């Protein structure tokens, strides 16, 4: 087991290296000269001497392979450079934004796990009941609405309407921004904070919660038919015990996989959610920086996401062992 973890950790290095290197060259191919961008000469030809100074300062006059080597040399030392647009250190930007994104993501994942799995379980156990049919339709529906439309509707319905109709203060949710930034234990909103958190968290969670519910339902149905379940029932265990002790654990495998693989979807949804709700997180910043050709920011923040993705998948694989003791890690890769 420790050697497995070590091997997996080692594998993260080439993944991160190649992913970032690929993006490095992709971003360099983008139209729009970063030198012009930094010179601020967006609407007139900037002074050639300014351009030259910028080229030297940022090393644009070096051949691309040299720039590439320099990029990695700095990155390895955890110096992510500075924003072309506002000269802020990317390390600082990353620090600020990652914390905000993390808090939002924690809540979205909590909603996904609690609501998604609960709904999926009920749906599977009461198959073909009214609740099951509703779940099928609602979860399919939730994944058929563009995230930004949902966010916009929630803003209107839970923040604007309550305010215009003078609902009590606590019932007026907030449409945008981080809010007072008051948290306990890192992620528990205190004071006014929850009114700022709730709409973006629900919006971000919407898609993955629907998926988790569908997944749980499907996988639970599968498990309920399994032989060992029949054995468990034959042993005289009550249905509830059967489901709780044997069923749930086994049914969680694919759901856990989903939560791991789903990370990409969460990032995608986070870009949209953070943009709609002006939540100062990684997602909106990444999209902005790519569109704005702010390469150091785009690369630096993506680096964080790539590393996070790799670790989450490692955790997911490790959790297989816990959920299903039959899986022994270390003998080849996990499924």
């Amino acid at each position, binding site marked *: 087991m420790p050697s497995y973890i070590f091997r997996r950790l080692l594998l993260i290095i080439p993944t991160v290296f190649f992913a970032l290197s*690929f*993006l490095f060259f992709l971003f360099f191919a983008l139209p729009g000269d970063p030198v012009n961008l930094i010179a601020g000469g967006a609407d007139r030809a900037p002074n050639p001497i300014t351009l030259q100074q910028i080229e030297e300062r940022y090393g644009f006059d070096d051949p691309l392979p040299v720039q590439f080597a320099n990029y990695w040399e700095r990155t390895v030392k955890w110096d992510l450079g500075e924003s072309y647009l506002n000269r802020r250190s990317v390390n600082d930007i990353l620090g600020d934004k990652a914390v905000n994104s993390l808090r939002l993501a924690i809540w979205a994942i909590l909603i996904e796990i609690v609501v998604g799995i609960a709904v999926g379980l009920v749906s599977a156990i009461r198959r073909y009941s009214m609740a099951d049919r509703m779940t099928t339709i609602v979860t399919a529906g939730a994944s058929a609405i563009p995230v*930004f439309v949902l966010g916009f509707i929630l803003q209107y319905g839970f923040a604007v309407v309550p305010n215009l109709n003078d609902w009590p203060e606590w019932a007026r949710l907030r449409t945008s921004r981080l809010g007072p930034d008051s948290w306990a234990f890192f992620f528990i909103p205190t004071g006014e904070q929850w009114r700022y958190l709730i709409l973006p968290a629900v919006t971000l969670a919407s898609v993955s919660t629907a998926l988790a519910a569908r997944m749980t339902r499907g996988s639970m149905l599968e498990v309920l038919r399994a032989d060992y379940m029949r054995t468990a029932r034959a042993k005289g265990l009550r249905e509830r015990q059967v489901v709780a002790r044997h069923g749930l654990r086994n049914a969680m495998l694919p759901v856990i996989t989903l939560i791991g693989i789903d990370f990409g979807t969460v990032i995608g949804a986070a870009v949209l959610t953070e943009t709609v709700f002006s939540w100062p997180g990684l997602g909106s910043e*990444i999209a902005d920086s*790519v569109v704005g*050709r702010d390469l150091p920011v785009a690369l630096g923040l993506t680096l964080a996401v*790539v590393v996070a993705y790799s670790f989450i998948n490692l955790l997911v694989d490790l959790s297989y062992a816990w959920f299903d003791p039959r899986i022994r890690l270390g003998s080849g890769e996990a*499924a």
Partner: protein
Amino acid sequence: MTAIGHAGPDTALEAAEPGGELTDVAAARPLRKDVWRRFKRNRLAMVGLVLIVLLVLTAVFASVIAPYTITQRFSGEFRAGPSADHWFGTDLIGRDVFSRVVYGARVSLKIGIAATAIALVIGLALGAVAGFFGGPLESLIMRLTDIFLAIPYIVLAVAIAALLGRSENTVIIVLGFTGWLGICRIVRSSFLSLKQLEYVEAATALGYSKWRIMFRHILPNALQPIIVYGTIAVGSVILSEAALSFLGVGPQDPTPAWGLMVSDGKSQLPVAPHLLFFPGLAIFTTVLAFVFVGDGLRDALDPKLK
């Protein structure tokens, strides 16, 4: 399909997982007749199928169905609500929304199908090679998918769109080339388990070429989860187009892409809700239709579910 806020890969995983059991599935490839019989019993799936047929007909006969063209403007009728002349009302500059939504079926279907096709071709080819040949080739391909899975595809999508300029075709390329990862993994695991079966060994013993075995003997048995995946992916690609439009990297006006119309209509919600509602409804029902059909296919293709 790794798409932005959608149902694709994960639903398909339901079809593919748990991996080991594919062996049984493949051993008992269902008869087409049985599949159809089981599919027909699923009411939601049938509704979805009818909707998709209607959608395809709308796309094919758009010029017959739509009363006006996508650019024809009615001077003075700006943001007008639904009426006898304009069933879905008019947009900001006086174009008929109904006609645009009808023509939009073409755009959205084209994007959905073409992007899914690209993803399927890449995913199938790489996944089959990885699963069948194994060894360093497999490691290479799987590392490649790991790398691309680790890059948030939205970053890729925005970067590619910035590189190629904004158009329908860019959307297709973006979503096609970011959508093959899930397919590749599924195909690989199918091939991994299928190639160990007796009939493959028999074919090998008969001296058939590796390519023949791959495509003639294994592929048909590995198709089931791919069919399900591909069906649902078409819907999720259509949804992703909306997200790309929202981020400003989707198709451009006057292309009547539904996602673009929704994205533009979002600001008009409080004053001219029809601008968001009708194209939004078109996306919603289309995505649902593909999900229902995909679900129906999964159940119908799986002989264990009676």
